[in-house]
């Protein structure tokens, strides 16, 4: 299993998420932007995309809107939507955005150009537009520049760009391997070999590093065999691991190197080990034909005859198995077995890694599973699956949303009459007029120096009582005793003295109370406005929600139907890949079997002589 993963990782590595995030820490000002980063740093690109779109749509990014839009572009790239990323970046560049953001955009645009096989344009962007590389994009920038220069065949500059990357990193090793092979293919053998040798000297690392070392050894072996240097080839093949993803090919090359040196006995061990492995591997199929030939060379005709028979038996069995497999593929059984039970359930989770060992056919399809075409198709199928699960989740949520909306509508219908009644009550009270009248009375009292108007409740009551007593005293005339009149006059004088003594503070106090009341009245007006708005705007908002919910229900149904069709088409595409692979494999097996039959008859004839 580890071997398989190594192989897959190595082949798919550039397509897999970057080892470090493209956006490193920087100051978060809008929490909504921080929330986007929270999903992004956990490589939950779909969730991050949704969070970004929601934040942009709900105006939750007052200060970091442009930064979030750049992030949206990066997420589009990560989510395999390069066209959307390019459109967004182009739009951003026409706007007046922060120059540091422009630099980021140029780097990401260059990556998009490179992916679209426009390396010259990509390099021009990097060299002319990017004057200072942001620290967090440094590795990404140099890796991209290395790839571009390599694609352009400018190998010396590629080497200089590669030197900017951490020497012990997987990225460096991977790019160095590609550079070495490119140089060998371009006729710069020595330079390429030097890089390959450096790779083989790397200390043992993780599965990816070890797989790169294996590939470097293989490349060296193949090169020396092609150059007619079997001793050198055998030397490098001697270091190959017997449990790595390229173990079978290494064993075969080791045997060939021995045979090319005219030492069949040395090839024997490698070939015996090789043919003990599953016949589904191509090197094992070739080894099965090679081994009896070695026995022949060594004069062991019986072993040779048996070897050819074993090979024929293996080819035939595998040929038949591929026929059965074709039927299983056409019936859809193979795909169901391959898919197994998808281990994740939450629609926002990242996609699961490819774990295809469940299928019996895994060994046969090892090379196919490691191909970019299969991996893309497989990933897309799972993405569609995830998206349909998301739709299922929304479909399940729609009735609850419907109930919620109905509850809002009911509450609104109950509240509207209450709101109208409240507004009518407030209007009927004419509070503003009452307050205006009070201000006028106070102004008049101040103007007329009317100290009687400034008494508090108790004083006003006393004043009224004294006025009434005075009126009675006047009415009763002489019947009122003089001392009572004096008392009355004394009390009147005392109250007047009290009221006049602090007339100014009293005026100020009354005005303060009225001003406070005026402020409260303004608050009441604001509340009144809100109640009025709630009674009218909420109706509009609820109508909008109702309409949107109806649209969404239809859209979910329509999308789900489209998703189902797309999944079927994607499954058919994956099955076609497998069938095409079998269609190529079976004639090859036929050819090998024919060679084995001919060799068998030769051996038998030779033995008979």
């Amino acid at each position, binding site marked *: 299993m580890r071997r398989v993963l190594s192989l897959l990782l190595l082949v798919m590595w550039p397509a897999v998420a970057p080892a470090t995030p493209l956006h490193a820490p920087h100051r978060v000002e809008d929490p909504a932007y*921080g*929330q986007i980063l929270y999903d992004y740093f956990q490589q939950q690109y779909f969730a991050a995309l949704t969070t970004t*779109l*929601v934040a942009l*749509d709900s105006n939750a990014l007052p200060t970091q809107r442009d930064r979030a839009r750049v992030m949206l572009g990066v997420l589009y790239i990560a*989510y395999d939507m390069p066209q959307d990323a390019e459109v967004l970046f182009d739009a951003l560049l026409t706007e007046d955005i922060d120059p540091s953001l422009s630099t980021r955009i140029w780097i990401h645009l260059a990556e998009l150009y490179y992916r679209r096989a426009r390396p010259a344009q990509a390099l021009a962007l990097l060299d002319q537009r990017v004057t200072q590389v942001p620290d967090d994009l440094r590795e990404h920038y140099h890796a991209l520049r290395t790839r571009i220069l390599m694609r352009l065949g400018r190998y010396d500059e590629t080497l200089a760009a590669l030197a900017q990357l951490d020497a012990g990193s997987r990225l460096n090793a991977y790019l160095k391997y590609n550079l070495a092979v490119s140089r060998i293919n371009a006729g710069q053998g020595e330079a390429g070999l030097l890089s390959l040798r450096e790779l083989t000297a790397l200390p043992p690392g993780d599965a990816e590093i070890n797989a790169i070392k294996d590939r470097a050894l293989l490349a060296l072996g193949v090169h020396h065999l092609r150059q007619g240097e079997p001793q050198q080839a055998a030397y490098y093949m001697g270091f190959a691991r017997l449990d790595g993803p390229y173990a079978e090919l290494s064993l075969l090359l080791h045997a060939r190197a021995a045979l090319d040196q005219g030492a069949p006995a040395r090839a024997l061990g490698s070939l015996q080990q090789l043919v003990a492995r599953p016949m589904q591997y191509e090197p094992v199929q070739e080894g099965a034909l090679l081994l009896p030939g070695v026995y022949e060379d060594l004069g062991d005709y019986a072993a040779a005859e048996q070897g050819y028979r074993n090979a024929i038996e293996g080819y035939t069995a595998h040929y038949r198995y591929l026929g059965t497999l074709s039927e299983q593929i056409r019936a859809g059984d193979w795909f169901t077995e391959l898919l197994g039970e998808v281990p994740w359930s939450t629609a926002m989770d990242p996609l699961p890694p490819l774990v295809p060992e469940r299928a019996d056919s895994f060994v046969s399809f090892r090379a196919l599973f490691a191909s970019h075409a299969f991996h893309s198709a497989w990933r*897309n199928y799972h993405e569609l699956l995830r998206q349909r699960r998301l739709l299922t989740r929304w479909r399940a949520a729609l009735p609850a949303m419907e109930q*919620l909306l109905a509850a809002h509508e009911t509450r609104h219908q109950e509240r509207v009459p209450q709101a109208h009644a409240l507004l009518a009550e407030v209007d009927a009270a004419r509070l503003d007029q009452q307050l205006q009248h009070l201000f006028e009375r106070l102004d008049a009292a101040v103007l007329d120096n009317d100290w009687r108007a400034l008494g508090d409740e108790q004083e006003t009551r006393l004043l009224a009582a004294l006025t009434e007593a005075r009126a009675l005293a006047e009415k009763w005339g002489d019947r009122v005793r003089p001392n009572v009149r004096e008392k009355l006059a004394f009390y009147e004088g005392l109250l007047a003295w009290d009221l006049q003594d602090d007339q100014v503070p009293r005026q100020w106090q009354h005005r303060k109370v009225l001003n406070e009341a005026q402020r409260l009245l303004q608050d009441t007006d604001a509340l009144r406005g809100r109640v009025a708005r709630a009674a009218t705007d909420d109706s509009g908002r609820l109508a909008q*929600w109702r309409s949107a919910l109806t649209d969404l229900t239809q859209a979910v149904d329509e*999308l789900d139907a489209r998703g189902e069709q797309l999944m079927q088409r994607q499954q058919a595409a994956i099955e076609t890949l497998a069938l095409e692979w079998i269609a190529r494999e079976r004639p090859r097996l036929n050819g090998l079997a024919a060679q084995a039959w001919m060799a068998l008859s030769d051996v038998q004839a030779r033995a008979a002589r």
Partner: protein
Amino acid sequence: MSLTLWRRLLCAVLLLCSGVAVAGELSDDSAQFRRDILDINKRMLLMEEELLFPADTRVTLFLSLDVGRFFTPDAVTLKLDGDTLVSHLYTEREIRALRNGAVQRLHTTNLRNGEHELTAFVTGIGPNGREIRRAGTLTFEKASGQHYIQVRLEDDAAAQQPNIVFRNWQ
């Protein structure tokens, strides 16, 4: 070259071209589907939030980790007016994201206008693997409109301990 061979070649080329075209078409359709899914997902989320948490009563709670040199949070619990609102246990990936400057949207709830008390309890690991527990309380006035509260776990370099700092705004 015989006519049959030409025919075969032509068929092979057509088959190849149709295969490429079908693959391209599927890829285009899938890309459009992705766009539509993202759009509907956004609309559904916005609608769900509007229905569950109307803007007038909505309170959104965020958590962030400022530097985090002296503290690695294990769990956080938020209590609002004495009732537990939310508890969260952190994974390594989440901690890494927070350390890189991300902000976690911890919870969204509805609240009546008026005074409320929010208490944050945080447990985690401090310098030398020492377990650290911290609590902080914020009294805030909820008015009409959306309200946001950010719980920030800040490093106190002098004490080599974390501080809980609240930031709230409307």
